[in-house]
């Protein structure tokens, strides 16, 4: 069968492979090359070695964005996962009324796009800030940061909760019954039975929240756009602004160099993350 299938590659393989080449492979390779060049359009790049990287790394806005992104990612990863897991534990209790409707409600924001979310919360947060006599988002760094955190909680808790519920439901009830027979308290059952068996799910959720936090763009752009003065600008937005919001031919190359650094960071995080939590997974 394989032999006869092999010759059908123009039908099965070609469309996707070709689109993938143009939609990913070529732009990726070109992007890698351009990060060593000075250019304003793709047609006339001039090789300049690593100077883009030097400029990128010495850009104070970039390092500010990096540390802000790191802090932001840590905060939302911890908050989202703890709250989502807690809610999931409540919703998998026996005899809790209405848990299905709650699930529906909590998951809903996840379907709304980042730009729309950003504006909804901009209006809401600005309303709150005005009513408590604080400066608006455009001038308020702390409110911008925590506003983005709250926005992400609103969007992602429902999503992670759903995954945790699926994980909790897939724990064989034998284990829980065995724990009950052995006289474990609810607290002991949680830490000794549920959490260890949930490790694969926790890996997935951590992985998702961390990469989501790191790659965040739309929400950041729509909620504050980096205001005031780039102080709430995360990495992805910083790269975008370096490319498109700064005058001068050198910034394109620097933006591309930043993008490469960003890309390497995201890849490293994903790999470390997977390695670290995979070792803790329960072997079945």
């Amino acid at each position, binding site marked *: 069968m394989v032999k006869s299938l092999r010759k059908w590659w123009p039908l099965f393989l070609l469309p996707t492979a070709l689109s993938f080449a143009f939609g*990913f492979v070529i732009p990726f390779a070109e992007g890698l090359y351009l990060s060593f060049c000075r250019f304003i359009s793709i047609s006339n790049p001039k090789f300049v070695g690593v100077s883009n990287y030097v400029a990128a790394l010495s850009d104070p806005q970039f390092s500010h964005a990096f540390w802000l992104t790191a802090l932001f990612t840590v905060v939302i990863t911890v908050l989202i996962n703890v709250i989502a897991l807690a809610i999931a534990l409540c919703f998998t209790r026996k005899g809790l009324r209405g848990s299905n409707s709650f699930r529906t409600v909590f998951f809903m924001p996840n379907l709304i796009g980042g730009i729309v979310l950003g504006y909804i919360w901009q209006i809401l947060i600005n309303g709150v800030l005005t009513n408590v006599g604080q400066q608006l988002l455009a001038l308020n760094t702390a409110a911008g940061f925590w506003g983005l955190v709250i926005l992400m909680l609103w969007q992602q808790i429902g999503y992670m909760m759903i995954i945790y519920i699926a994980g909790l439901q897939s724990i064989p009830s034998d284990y829980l019954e065995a724990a009950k027979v052995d006289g474990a308290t609810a607290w002991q059952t949680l830490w000794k039975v549920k959490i260890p068996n949930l490790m694969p799910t926790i890996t997935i959720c951590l992985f998702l929240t961390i990469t989501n936090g790191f790659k965040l763009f739309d929400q950041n752009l*729509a909620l504050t756009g980096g205001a005031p003065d780039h102080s709430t600008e995360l990495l992805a937005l910083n790269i*975008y602004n370096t490319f498109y919001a700064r005058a001068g031919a050198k910034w394109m190359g620097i933006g*591309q160099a930043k993008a490469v650094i960003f890309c390497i960071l995201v*890849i490293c995080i994903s790999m470390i993350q997977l390695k670290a939590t995979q070792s803790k997974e329960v072997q079945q």
Partner: protein
Amino acid sequence: MQREKITNRILTVFFTVLSLAWIYPMVMILMNSFKQGTAITTASAFDPVTAATSAGFANYISALTKQGFAAAFGYTLVITLTSVALILVCCSMCAWYVVRVNNKFCKALYYLFVFSMVVPFQMLMFTLSSLADSMGLNTPYNICFIYLGFGAGLAVFMFAGFVKTIPLEIEEAATIDGCNPVQTFFHVVLPIMKPTYISVGILETMWVWNDYLLPYLVLDSTKYKTIPILIQYFRGGYGHVELGPMMACIMMTILPIVIVYLLCQRFIISGVVSGAVKG
């Protein structure tokens, strides 16, 4: 036992309150979308609509006619439908081929697909949009090829994961029954993969429908605006912001999503879960 019941009751009350808070942001936008433009200020954002401030459906009409929401909705719909359909058909075929043939080229390609899932869009945004421009893939009708290329990673990965669980014997039976590979795929493999089509379809729809940066950079945004681009455009500092129509736009963006979600909740949730678990 009694204690459990009381705990459950307290939890129900707690989550009811929390649920109401959870949908409040949307309710707030809904209220404001019916206010007159002058009545929408940051200070009065939480005030309910009154007879004095009510604008009726004026904001909605303005959004649809003057602000170009109808066109944006149409473009978004076209892009989403063509892209997702293309991704589903091409990627499932590609995944089946890659898994079954499994030679060196297929393996390399598969790892590239997996790799592409991790790479952030910023890495390619400039080169990809230039390439799309030069190849003429910058209209809502053919941007789907860009989506196919950039979205192939996740889709192929998920389809391949499922193909690996299909027993080879079924396809061998089809071969003996007289199917050529194309017939085997469409008569036998495709129907078996239906759940994965639903999952991938939902994930890709959510992505394409809400995507902002890719269409913004690739499309000629003076001519074609998708919904996210339109909403961003309201706030993009292009002169006077009409808050009323903007609220109406947001509402009209959310509403179809909420309705679809409530109708096929089961599929969406299970699709998202399987996407996450495999990704």
